[in-house]
């Protein structure tokens, strides 16, 4: 044995170093903050179904974690094999995987690419085709359609009509309604005057035939100086009957030489004068209605929910506070905003609308162990039914920061 000391020594050395390394790795994760929720008002059962996902910034690196109100789990603590399926568990993806495991096998983990009607589940994305003489050709929609009753999957490639294959097409939203799939696209191309022309179109695809039934250009505008911006309202409530009936488009008109925020969820400087119009497109009648939004709505306001023929809910920041605006679509009434009862200045926030509850998590600019606040609104009555503080087990250092960015 002694004459083989070099090899044996190396093996022992490797074992010691890696053991030390792994022990230290697990200990290091234990030095990261863990969280508890301190209820200040209401019944804690309201928040039991949710999981918070966030980032712990150490100053140099970022560590992902989840907190399900029972335990904090950093990505490093997640079993390696489980981690293969991704760290984030999107409730909607989990639901689809449980209901349709064979259909969901091999599918992308992007909630926005799925839509479901009472008959079908559809996954859709764009096939950008190829370029010929600098012109795009063969652009198509790739659909994977599951017939829910027959449990049969069909794959379809539906070519976008040649006349519509303009310089740039982006898939904005899709809604499956009965046997139809409505795909909303944004097109941009250069006009004869050298300006960029945008239009929003709705392709209605008959899923049983795999063909485009109709194409409607629902809105066209020239973007001269970027003072006008149109977005499809980011409504994420999958069970909303909105998808069956009406789609909302947000039109922001901003004064010249001011920038438009790309993401409605990001809001900081609210001083620019912006007026909003809400365009509602009705899938049934293919008609457009334009509504003037209440004047309290500011740049950066985010749509939370809208059910057909019911109120629109928006959330926005106002002088380091958050407010929810409930507005009956088309009403001239100027509703008073509902202040989110935060105790600390708002750093950023995230929302989730589940069932009849609106969950609002606010990352606070609070010192010490207070990381943020959760407030829950019971939408039918407009009552705040829960408030709680997310507490860290230790004060954060100067360079450390915890940001919760999604609620599932």
């Amino acid at each position, binding site marked *: 044995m002694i004459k*083989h000391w*070099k*090899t044996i020594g*190396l*093996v022992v*050395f*490797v074992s010691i*170093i*890696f053991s*030390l*390394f*792994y022990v*230290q*790795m697990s200990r*290091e*994760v234990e*030095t990261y903050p863990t969280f508890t929720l301190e209820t200040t008002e209401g019944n804690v059962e309201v928040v039991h179904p949710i999981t918070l996902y966030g980032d712990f910034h*150490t*100053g*140099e*690196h970022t560590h992902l974690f989840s907190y399900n109100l029972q335990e904090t789990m950093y990505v*490093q603590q997640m*079993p*390696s*094999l*489980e981690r*293969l*399926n*991704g760290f984030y568990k999107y409730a909607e993806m989990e639901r689809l995987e449980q209901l349709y495991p064979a259909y969901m*096998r*091999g*599918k*992308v983990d992007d909630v926005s690419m799925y839509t479901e009607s009472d008959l079908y589940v559809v996954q859709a994305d764009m096939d950008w085709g190829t370029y010929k003489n600098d012109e795009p050709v063969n652009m198509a929609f790739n659909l994977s359609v599951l017939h829910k009753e027959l449990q049969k999957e069909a794959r379809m490639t539906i070519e976008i009509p040649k006349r519509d294959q303009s310089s740039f097409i982006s898939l904005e939203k899709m809604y499956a309604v009965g046997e139809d799939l409505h795909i909303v696209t944004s097109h941009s191309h250069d006009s004869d005057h050298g300006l960029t022309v945008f239009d929003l179109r709705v392709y209605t695809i008959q899923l049983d035939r795999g063909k485009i039934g109709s194409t409607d250009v629902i809105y066209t505008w020239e973007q001269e100086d970027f003072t006008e911006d149109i977005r499809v309202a980011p409504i994420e409530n999958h069970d909303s009957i909105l998808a069956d009936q009406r789609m909302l488009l947000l039109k922001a008109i901003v004064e010249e030489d001011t920038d438009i925020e790309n993401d409605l969820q990001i809001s900081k400087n609210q001083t620019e004068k912006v007026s909003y119009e809400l365009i509602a497109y009705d899938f049934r009648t293919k008609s457009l209605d334009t509504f003037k939004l209440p004047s309290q709505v500011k740049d950066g306001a985010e749509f939370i929910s809208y059910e057909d023929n019911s109120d629109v809910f928006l959330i926005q920041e106002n002088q380091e506070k958050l407010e929810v605006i409930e507005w009956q679509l088309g009403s001239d009434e100027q509703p008073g905003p509902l202040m989110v009862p935060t105790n600390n200045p708002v750093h950023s926030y995230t929302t989730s609308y589940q069932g009849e509850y609106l969950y609002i998590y606010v990352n606070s600019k609070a010192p010490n162990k207070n990381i943020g606040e959760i407030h829950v609104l019971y939408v039918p009555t407009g009552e705040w039914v829960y408030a709680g503080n997310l507490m860290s087990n230790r004060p954060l250092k100067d360079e450390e920061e915890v940001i919760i960015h999604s609620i599932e």
Partner: protein
Amino acid sequence: MRKGSRLIFFEFNRASRMYFTLLTVMFFTQILGFFVMSKGYMGQVEHYIRTYGLDIPAIQEAIGIFSPEQIIQSPWVMAPLSLCIVYMIAYTFFIWYRDWYGANVFIYRLFMLPVSRTYVFISKAVTILLMVIGIIAFQLFVLYIGKWIIAGNIPIDFRGSLSMLDIVMGFNYLTIFFPFTTVQFFTLFGGMFIFITIVFTAILLERSFHLKGIIYGLMYIIGSIVLLISPSITEIILQRSFVYPAEMFWIQVGLFLISAYISIRVSTYLLEKKVHV
């Protein structure tokens, strides 16, 4: 088993002189780097204090805080580590060719040993793997010492995180060589072992068929790589995936095991029937 381990001891002993020399060079260069760079940073700090009378936040603003990443990505650490990597790649070939082209035709003596030639093959592969794991472990060891050097030289106000996780992540793309979990450990080094057996098989094809063998060897490597990444190729060609990520992992594990089995069987056949001395 015992015969196999003896062969591993033997192979490692043959490589040890150069190997330990490299580790020594790596140790001293990197440790020197930790000293030079941390002292250099503190020299800057003192300069700012003496010359401009700045306080801690002002200095942090002026020159930033010292991050271990700065050392890790400097030539002090990267150069010796790269040298080790290049050495290991070269030694993967050298471990065989030396036996043919060395002072004595040593392969003849190896083949005359009363052990299966498969042991010869596997012992060489295990030796290479052991040396690679040794380098990575040694790098971790140096980082532990480097961490103490930084902590000793630079006050806490002026330095970034000294957690091992953050330090190792400073290697950027080379971080893949540092398995953070035991599953990653077995995946990484298992995969490495299989890759070594593929390269060894290609070498033995060359030793068996000479010029033609080079082509066979290259074809074998390409074929093995295609086999190993065939699930990904299929996904790219058909532009869709067919399995859940965890299922894909087990398919990959299966393909790696098949590849290892084929390599060992082919190599054993070549060693027993085809290789010329």
